[in-house]
Each structure stands twice: as C-alpha cells, then as structure tokens.
C-alpha cells in the first residue's frame, strides 16, 4: 500500500526502566515520567525540541486532566505554542498514538511528532463503591425511610476502597483464563512461555540491547539513587522460580498464575516520528519506517483476539501476508493471550468465523516471536507498552539485519491494533 508518498520514519526513542509500582517511581506522576522520557528521546535522536511540531501522550487509563499532554510537551522542552493531545485506549493507546502521528506526518500537517506514552501505576487512584458515595450524599429526593434503610442495610465490605490497578489486573486475569480454557492451553504451556519471555529478555540484556533503549532515572529529591534496571525480569530463571508464583490466583480451569500475567509497572516510553525524507536531509538515520497500521473491534465471541484481526487488516493494506513478516512483537498481556493469538493465526476456524476467509492467516513461528522477551518479563505500563514494543522490534530488526516486522496488540478485551514496520 502506498496511499502517500511521504515516508514516516521512527527516528529513535527511549524508555525509562519499568519499575514495580509503589517503589522507586512512586513519586513520579505521568507528567514527570512523560517530560523526562520525552526530553531524553529528543536529545538522543539529536532533534532540538523546537523542531517538534506536535506531541501525543498515550496512556492506558483516563486519569489525569485534559491539559496533561500539553504540560508534558512543555516539560519535554517543546515550544508552548505547539499542540498536544492525549490518547486513552488501554493497551492500544501507544499504537494508536503512533498511528495518529503517522497520519499527521503523512498528510503533511507535521514534520516531527513526539509520541510518548506511559503510566504511573503507583499514582492510579483508588475507587470506592458507589453505595459508599450514596451513603454520604444526602439528596433531598431520598425519603427519610429510604435513608434509614440505606444506613441499616449498608454493606460494609463496600467501604474497602478498590485500587484501580487491581481492577485492570483482574480483567486481564479473567481474559487469560477464558482464552486458556477456550484454546485448551495448559498451565505448563503458559509457564513455559513465561519462562521463555524472561530468558529472552535476559539474553537481550546481556547482549546490551536493552541498555540502548533505556534511560537511567535519577530519583528526586536526593538524586543519589540511579534507577537503570527493570524490576521484574528474574535474573536466574528456572522452571522452579515460575512455579513459585503459581500458588497465587490459580482459578478453576484456566491454569493462569500470577507469573503468567504481565505485571503492571510504572514507566514511560517515547518515540520521535518524522518525515523520512526530511530526516535524511537533516542527516539523521531513521530506525525504521512505519508502513501501515490498522485497528479493529471484535465481537464478544472473539474477545482478546482483536490483535489477529488488526494484524491481518494492516497486512491487507500492503497486500502482504503473514509469512512476509520476519519478526513479530505480540503484546504479552498474559501468556495465554499470546499463545491464543498464535493459535488463532494458524486456525482455520478463526479465519472462517471471524474474518470470513477460507484459509487460515498463516503461522507465527516461535523463533520470530518476541525475540527480546516482552511484557511478561518486563511488565506492562499500559500506554507505554505499545511504543516499547515498536522500539524493541525496530532495534531487533536492525541488529538481525531484517526488513519487515509487525507489532500486534490486543487489549481492552475487544480491541486490537497492528502496525507494520519496515527498516
């Protein structure tokens, strides 16, 4: 597909370490994470901030006020008169932001766009049950007896505030269980995949692939501590280590363990996208080019498999097929999710029922999948994870000297997104 002549290049990017919520980054809000990572990304690709025409902030969940994106953009040093906006779309937010930047550049609206995304999971608010709110709200419409009844029959378990982070995690667990049951993925298979993710990440770190995309963060107010490591990846991974996690949250049927669902983390990632012709004229060598993208929604039946559909659609735009892709980066919301997607790609039934095709999409071979590990090892920072996958995929394409790659995200239960990149 070439709807447009303008090549959209990813110049480069950087991410903060992914840190367990409530630990080192607990005092860094979205604003600070975004400004830090945005500023560093611009410095790393040697683009002065005043060249940036627009910036996009992606976050998974809608917390923070409307002006957040602009404040992040000024915090990153971008001029105050440049527009900025926020994309909130669960795990798809990062890719959606990239897609929007793609459109802006392809249509000539902007030359350079900063795309940043992330989530301060530590600072996600706690929510309380609506009945608690009702309890304290004395509306005149409630009769006296009504009020008394409300007080008398108040469910005190509702008093416990609920961490929003916990809500998302529960959703992910539920989805993982459902997929595991549906596709018949056993607990051992999931654990094996989790283990693989950790091992691949460690291998990449030893090969110094991770360090290139990571920025050290100095912690205020003392600044004596430098965070330059991701918290979650386990250094010496054995089957036992994963099994240790297994006793938590095992539910009937699914065999999902807390090890095989991606943990939520604090962190952010930023990419700089630009007009490729312009970048080359400026003497900047792009990391790669974005060739096409697609997003889709799916029915209840295909919950969690949106990624496969979106990947198919984005490839269709280029009249390419799955076997042309040399590397895949599939969002590891849970081990079951990736395995289910892998099965769906090669499943005739899926192709027939969901896509209305007679042939299956093709095979995603294991050695082409997530070569540097993924969210299972690293953790998932909602808005930033899509960007981080893109960044690591482009880095891997370069180090393996390959050409085509595809990022697949399926999140928010019934949405999916896919981006095809060429180096």
């Amino acid at each position, binding site marked *: 597909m070439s709807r447009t002549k303008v090549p959209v290049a990813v110049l480069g990017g950087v991410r903060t370490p992914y840190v367990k919520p409530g630990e080192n980054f607990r005092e860094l809000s979205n604003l600070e994470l975004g400004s830090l990572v945005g500023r560093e990304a611009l410095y*790393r690709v040697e683009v002065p901030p005043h060249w940036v025409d627009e910036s996009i902030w992606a976050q998974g969940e809608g917390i923070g006020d409307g002006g957040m994106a602009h404040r992040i953009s000024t915090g990153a040093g971008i001029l105050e008169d440049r527009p900025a906006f926020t994309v909130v779309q669960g795990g798809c937010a990062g890719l959606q932001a990239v897609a929007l930047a793609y459109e802006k550049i392809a249509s000539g609206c902007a030359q350079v766009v900063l795309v940043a995304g992330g989530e301060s999971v530590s600072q996600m608010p706690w929510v309380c049950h609506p009945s608690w709110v009702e309890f304290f709200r004395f509306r005149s419409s409630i009769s006296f007896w009504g009020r008394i009844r409300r007080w008398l029959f108040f469910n005190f378990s509702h008093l416990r505030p609920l961490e929003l982070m916990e809500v998302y995690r529960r959703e992910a667990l539920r989805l993982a269980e459902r997929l595991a049951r549906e596709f018949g993925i056993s607990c051992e298979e999931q654990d094996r995949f989790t283990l693989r993710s950790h091992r691949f990440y460690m291998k990449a770190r030893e090969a110094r692939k991770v360090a290139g995309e990571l920025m050290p963060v*100095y912690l205020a107010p003392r600044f004596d501590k430098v965070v330059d490591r991701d918290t979650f990846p386990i250094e010496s991974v054995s089957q036992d280590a994963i099994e240790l996690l297994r006793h938590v949250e095992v539910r009937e049927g699914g065999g999902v363990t807390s090890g095989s669902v991606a943990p939520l983390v604090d962190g952010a990632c930023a990419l700089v996208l630009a007009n490729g012709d312009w970048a080359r004229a400026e003497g900047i060598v792009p990391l790669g080019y974005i060739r096409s993208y697609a997003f889709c929604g799916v029915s209840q039946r295909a919950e969690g498999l949106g990624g496969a559909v979106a990947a198919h659609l984005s490839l269709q735009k280029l009249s390419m097929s799955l076997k042309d892709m040399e590397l895949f980066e599939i969002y590891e919301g849970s081990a079951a999710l990736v395995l289910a997607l892998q099965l769906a790609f090669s499943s005739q039934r899926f192709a027939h029922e969901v896509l209305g095709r007679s042939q299956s999409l093709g095979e995603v071979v294991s050695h082409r999948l997530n070569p540097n590990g993924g969210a299972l090892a690293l953790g998932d920072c909602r808005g930033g994870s899509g960007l981080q996958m893109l960044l690591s995929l482009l880095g891997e394409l370069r180090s393996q000297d390959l050409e085509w790659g595809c990022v697949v995200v399926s999140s928010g239960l019934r949405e999916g997104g896919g981006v095809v990149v060429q180096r």
Partner: protein
Amino acid sequence: MKSLVEIRQESENIYSLVLNPMQEREFRIDESFMYALLYALEELEKYPDVEGVLVYSDREDYFAEDGEFRCFLEVSEEELRRRLIFFRDVLRRLEGLDAPTVCLLRGRCGGMALELALVCRFRLAAKGEGSSFAFSQLQKGMLPYLGGGQRLVRLVGLKAALELLVEGRGFEAERGLELGLFDGLFSGPDLICEGVRWLRLCGKRREEGGKGSFLSRLLGGVEGYFLRKRYGSTPVASFLLRTMLEGIRYPLGKALEYELDMVLRFLGQEGVRNELRYAHLEDVHKRSQGIFFPPCSVGVVGAGRRGRQLAAHLAANGIPVRLKDINPQALGEALRYAHLQLRGEEGSTLEGGREGKPQLYLGKYPRLETLISPTLEYTGMRHCEVVVEAVMEEKAIKGKVLEELEKYCSPEAVWISLISSLSLGEVVGGCRHRQRIAGLQILYGVDTPLVELIRGEKTSLETLKFLQNFLKSLKKLPVVVKDSPGFLVNRVAFAYLNEALHLLEEGLLIEEIEEAMRGLGLERGPFEFMDHLGLDTLFYLSKNVATRLSHWPASSEIIEKVYKSGREGLKNGRGFYIYEKGQKRVDPRIYDLLREFRKDRKRMPSSLVANRLLLTMVQEAFLCQMEKVVENMVELELALTMGLALPRKWGGLFQYIKNLGIEKFLQTMDHSSPRGKLLPSKELRTFLENYEKVC
C-alpha cells in the same frame, strides 16, 4: 510622532492617560515624560465633565523603567532643584485633578512607576505571574524623589513603608492589597474595562485624607527609635528614615518640600554621587545590546563543582541543559545540588520532613530541575548552541575533552572553557575551531555577577559578542580579558593578598591588618577575603599563576601550610577565621600553626599597613592596564571594584588614590618595604596624575 503620554476616551466622560503609546522597549520616567504628562494634563483639564481618569501603560510586560539617576549627577545644584520642583509640581497637578484617578498596574513595575501610581487616588494591580512590584530605588542607591516616600508612609504606615522601601524586595499584588498599597486587584487582559468598572462602582468614594497620620505622628517618635535600629544601617536608609519621620509631621505639601531638600542634600555628597555613577555603569554593562535570543539548549560537560553550579544557574534562568559526565554519581549530585538551589528548602528535603511521603504532582508543572538532563554519553550535544567544558582543571584532560567534543558538536556551536589558572591558549591548542572557543572564569560563585570572559588568541569577535550578550542575559557582568596568567581579578587579588601574608610574616597580627583595611571602608579585610575566595583556589593560584609572572615576588609559604592543614575557607567553615553559627572570629590556633614563618612581633601604624596593601593593589592593576589585559578602562575599574569588594563610594581604585593625594600616598612608602619592590615606578606616578575619572 506620538507623544509619550496620550489621552484616550474610554467611555462617556471617562478618559485615560496612556503612557508609552508607542510601546517602546525603553520607556523611562524622566524629564521628557514629565513634560508630556504636563501637556496631557493641561489638555485634560480643558475637558468638561470628566468623571474619571485611568492611568495605564500600553505595554503589557512592564509599566515604566526608572529614570536614570545619572542625569542628576551632571547638572548643577540649581538645575537639579529646578528639575525636582518641576517633577513635584507636575505630579501635584495630577494629584489635584477633580475627577478620581485610577492607576492600573500590570507587568514589571519598578520604584518610580509605583511612585507615580501613588499619586493617583486609586491603584489597581494585576494578579498573576506577569506582574511584579518592587520599590527598587534604594537598591540602586537613590532616595525616592517623586514624593513616593511621603505618600507611601501616609498610605500604609511607617513600618510597612520602610519594609517596602528599605528591603526593596519584590512583592506580589496580593501582598500590596494586604498592606493597603493597592485598592483592588484585577486579572485578565481587559484592564480598561476593569478600570471603568472600578470608577463606576467606587469612584464616588473620596479618600479620607490623612487619616491615621495623627496616630502615626503620635507614635512616630517611639516607633522611629526602634525602626532606626532595624533599618537605619546604611546611610541611604537612615536618610530615608529621617525624611519619613520628619515628613510625617507636616501636611503633604510641606513634607514634599522637606523631602526635596533632603534629596538635594543627599545628592550633594561625593560618596553618594560616586556610588550612583557606579551603579549606573554596572547597569549599563549588564544590559545586552540589541535583541538577543537565548540559546535553546546548553551542553555542559563535567558535573564537578563549577559544572553543577553553572547547570543549576542556567536551569534557574529557564535554559535547558544537557549535562554530561562519566560518573553517574557526580550527575546525581549535580541534580541534587540544582534541586536544592532551585527549591531553596534545604532543611526540609535533607532532614526528613516531607521526604518519603508519596506526593501527587498531578496539578503541578514539571519542576525546574528537570531542565537539566543528565547523560553519560555525548548524545544531544549536536544542537546545543553553547557548549561549556567544565572538567577538571588539568591541561591534558581539558584538551582531550575538547577534542572529543569536536566529534559530537555542531561546528556552529560556541564553546566555553571554564578555566581559572590555566592558559586558554594551551588548553585549546589541539582544536580546529579555535575561533569559536572562549574561556570563562567564574569568580567566587556562580551567583556573583562578575565573570571574566577570556579572549584567546584566535577567538573571533563574533563569538565574543555572542557570549557577552548571553552572559548579560543571565544577569552577569562579563569583563573581557586577555589570555594572560591569572587574568585580571585573581592577579590583582593575589598580589594584594600575598602582600597581606608577607605583612603577617613580618610580625603583624591578623586583626591589625584586617582593621587597617576595614578602616578604609572595605567590607572585609584581606584574610576574610581569602576565606571567601577559598584557600584551595588561592593555593592553586600560587602554584599555577604566580610562577608564570616573572615580576612577582615569591608567594608566601603560609598559603600552602594553611591549606594543607585542612582549611579551605568559608567552604568548610575554617580558614584564617572560624565560621560558626553565623559568627566569625579569628582562629586562635592559626598563630601556632604559622610560628615557623613569623618573625618577632612588630608594630606598624595602620595607615602604613593600608597604604602598603593599597599600593600593591594599584601597582598590579596598573601593570594590567599597561599590558592591556582589559581593553576598556571602565571595565577595569568595574571589575576591580566588584572583584576585590572595594567600596563603591570610592569611584574606582585609581580615583581613590588620586583623591587621597598621590604625593602623600607615595611618600609613606619610602621606608616601609623591606624588599624594595614596592617603590612605585615613574610610569605609575604619571599615570595617576593624568588619570581621569571613569566611574
């Protein structure tokens, strides 16, 4: 051409006096403005049924600059009196308008702008970030001379008036409202609307004239005693206090007359005139020429002491900094330093306090220290317009870093090398773009306005001009010096301090030497000066600089001994003095430490001590002038006065000697020096004789 003051009709029967309708950048309250105001007032008085008058400035960012005091220094006393009376009469006329006047203040309002506002019946001030108010006259060494003192004291009372005037700190609109200085606040861009509304609502209210002045009169005597103790420390403040205490007893008209007399008496003093002239020169030299765009980012290599100070200073001025070092710990320390500097709450962050508690920063803008982005590699340097090399003071390391920088920086960038004792020529020897490199010496600390900009052999004029403007935009006073050993200030200072040490060796006491210099009006004597300079700096100066100047006498061994005993001066609270709990006293153990160097106890008249020290200073300064270390005589005098903390009322070092009497001064020297090196040369004598005042 438009006049400086314009009359506009805002609505029916409401007019406004618009200041600066041409929206010039430099709009001052001076004589031509007063004439324009007079004509406008004459015009306005002809209009029938004026119900209200608004006074505002057309520019949003500032109201009006203060008039230059310098113009008062060049005219005779008669002329001066005539001018002051004229100013007073014009303002009285504005005050005497039948219709209520409302002054709308927004943007930066200096002392005289506020004085002008005080003449109006009501004052409305703009809220928010853009506006700042300060009575800045006393900071510049001048009394308020538009009747501001008298009017302010009637409006807000003696105590608040003194606080505002003497401390001269900026205050916010809310604070002004609290004190009663402002009658109301407004926000938003449409100030005319606000003014008209105010007139319609409150214009009928007449101000009760002079209420509270009776009380003030009663308490004036008692209060005055205490206030004099608190505020009357400097001569100008005590003058002001006297004027206000006396003036409050009279009706306004007479009080203004009295104030005028006092201002004339004040300006009659030679020291005051010198000081004003000096302040003016400093002001001029700090102002950048033409329009200057600050660099959009600055790279700093090396996060050592100077590097981190500079980075914090730049960040405080809103300039993004890319800070590079090879040591992550140093980077962390630099960020911490910046954090403490920019926050200004050292206690609470260091000693627990709020630390450790998770905080929500959702509503806030990113903190200033995020402007500094640390890095371990040379990334992000390509588009820095200014790159500062602040690594260790060693020739090899500096040279290596500069060579590396050549790879990573754009060739258009301007480079600064921070040096203090090395020679710029040797450091930049291996670089290709030598025309784009200049040296910079930060004296004492990064907050001191005086900096020396070192012009290397190949440094181009363009680079120099750019850096001068850049430094001026950081509120610095750059003095361009030639690449020579010790440059200017350190060289003169070292000669002077070395002489003081020799005096100590000859058997004088530290206290005696200090007393002798303080007797001349210096804020601190040579030993306290050394502590402020840092004994480590002094040690390196004696090692690196003194050996390169052939005419210099051997530097005293005391420096090494004292430095090696672990004293670094003010930095670690121990030097020749001990600094404890904000107090200082001469370290009693210092004499024991230096016993081997000191000869027997000797006495010398303090005038002789002072003269000997002064003469070394003068001689070295003269040599600098001969060698053309500084091209400009004004810059030389400014740098010396600032760098050596000489009293401003001297009007420059050379001028002081001249006023003292050259012959008398030189004669005292005949028998004083044991080494004969101090005998003044013939050139110095002729130079001093022909010297004309510059400051």
